[in-house]
């Protein structure tokens, strides 16, 4: 007889636009564990490339001019040069590092704000919840790219940290809504009653009795925000609103488009950053979808 397992934590595959892609990955027909380790392997390789690469190969300035306009790959410049004659391979290493950093900051900021607003409104309920969710819904309806463009223009010098903060501050509402729903379902648990009877205040209850129970959920939300942050950075940089005085995967694409790398056949200028962005996003979504399944046995294929 068929009896469905009771849902433990609700799947994150709701609401967030990227979560749709993650749920598509689930249909791939590959086992959970395989997908988990593939994603870990890919992310590990990217991290090693971005973080250890510059150390192993010696520090190089990615903005230094080493050749001419679109030199093809050679033994000296492994992936050729870009429109300014800068080494594409070095740019790829530092660009990956920048993109990951911005994604990480954006993901952390979005998750932190989302968790604070989500738990407080879900736990307290009433007027406070109405007000906080009202703000959240307003932020959700404004296309984040518009805020990003306005903010990016308003701030003259955009460092990597500032970029991460800007993206994080505009993308928390999804996390806040998801966390609020989880908190509301945890609020009535009996262990909270015992904690109240032990004199625990709101902060203690949220910190010790609510958040630990949704850590797995929060982590999955963070992974999703991480991936989304990297893609948003690429989109902004593509428009020329990326971080100043550095290189990122998005900025590489920006220049290659401006200097018509596609038309001139300089594939090495636009192909590597595109592939890297795809791999990073793919690996993070694969990680998210496999974690979702590990934490939610109900989704597991029979």
């Amino acid at each position, binding site marked *: 007889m068929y009896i469905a397992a009771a849902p433990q934590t609700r799947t994150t595959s709701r609401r967030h636009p990227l979560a749709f892609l993650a749920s598509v990955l689930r249909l791939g027909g590959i086992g959970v564990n395989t997908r988990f380790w593939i994603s870990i392997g890919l992310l590990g390789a990217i991290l090693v490339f971005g973080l250890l690469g510059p150390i192993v190969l010696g520090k190089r300035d990615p903005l230094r001019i080493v050749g001419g306009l679109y030199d093809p790959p050679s033994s000296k410049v492994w992936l050729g040069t870009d429109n300014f004659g800068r080494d594409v391979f070095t740019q790829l290493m530092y660009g990956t590092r920048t993109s990951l950093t911005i994604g990480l900051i954006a993901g952390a900021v979005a998750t932190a704000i989302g968790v604070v607003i989500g738990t407080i409104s879900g736990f307290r309920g009433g007027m406070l919840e109405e007000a906080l969710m009202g703000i959240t819904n307003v932020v959700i309806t404004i296309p984040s790219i518009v805020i990003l463009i306005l903010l990016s223009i308003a701030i003259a010098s955009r460092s990597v940290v500032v970029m991460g903060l800007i993206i994080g501050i505009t993308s928390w509402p999804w996390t806040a809504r998801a966390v609020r729903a989880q908190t509301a379902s945890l609020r009535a648990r*009996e*262990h909270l*009653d*015992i*904690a*109240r*009877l*032990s*004199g625990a205040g709101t902060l203690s209850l949220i910190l010790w009795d609510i958040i630990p*129970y949704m850590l797995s959920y929060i982590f999955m939300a963070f992974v999703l925000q991480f991936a989304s942050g990297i893609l948003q950075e690429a989109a902004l940089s593509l428009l020329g609103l990326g971080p100043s005085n550095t290189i990122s995967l998005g900025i590489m694409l920006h220049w290659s488009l401006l200097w018509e790398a596609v038309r001139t056949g300089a594939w090495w200028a636009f192909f590597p950053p595109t592939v890297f962005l795809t791999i990073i996003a793919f690996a993070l979504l694969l990680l998210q979808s496999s974690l979702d399944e590990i934490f939610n046995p109900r989704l597991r294929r029979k």
Partner: protein
Amino acid sequence: MTSRTALLEVEGLTRRFGSGRNVVTAVKDVSFTLAPGEIVAIVGESGSGKSTLARLILRLLPPTAGTIRFAELGDVTRLRGGQLRRYWQHVQAVFQDPFATFNQFFTVRRFLLRSLGILDDPPQGTARDKAIAAALQAVGLEPSDVLPKWPHQLSGGQRQRLMIARTLLLRPRLVVADEPTSMLDASLRVTVLNLLAELRQHGTSILFITHDLGQAFYLADRLLVMYQGEIVEHGPVEAVLSAPRHPYTQRLLADVPRLGEGRTALTTSEHLTPHHFSTSS
């Protein structure tokens, strides 16, 4: 109903859930008193409103109407924040589900330390460790064995005993025990009931909530029978047992499984028909 010696005095307590056409009255105009050192049982089947009543009395749920008075604290129905804390120093709980009442991320030690937070002047240092050890030993748990453990490493019976150890540690004047044995093996129930009975020797009163008249008879001095949110019968255990007046009490009494000698014992009564009793008696 107003006696100066009462510890707890509940009057006209009502709780409604929902609104408009979907309104459900879970607890309807409940009044009773509980004297110091007394054990009162509230008996009813699931859905009779007895657990809602427990949460109302514990002030974990606000009532729709009615008042709760507690000894020298007076009317505690509208207490908030720090004043509520004062109330909880005197009134504690043991809940039904020994698996849901523990924060699974706390060890037993941390759980007990946190519980001491309700006291204004909790014991410190070695005095504290001694108090914890004594409370655990009183319920038959070995302190060095259970203190470092996580809740999932304990059996259901051990967890319920731990909950009772918690109340021993806090020494409240009233313990609301909401079905503390219904998720335990029959063979463990007596042990838990005996521990609750021992709480009384420390001067603690107990409001014991159960669906099983057998357990109520064993533990309590007085009975309140609850049906569809109302108290339909009340009185000393002896009286209700020997002459139950309300048909619902009679059925509850008949439903308690006694040791039988095979299946013939059951076939005489009819229980497949839905039962409805007037609550206006």
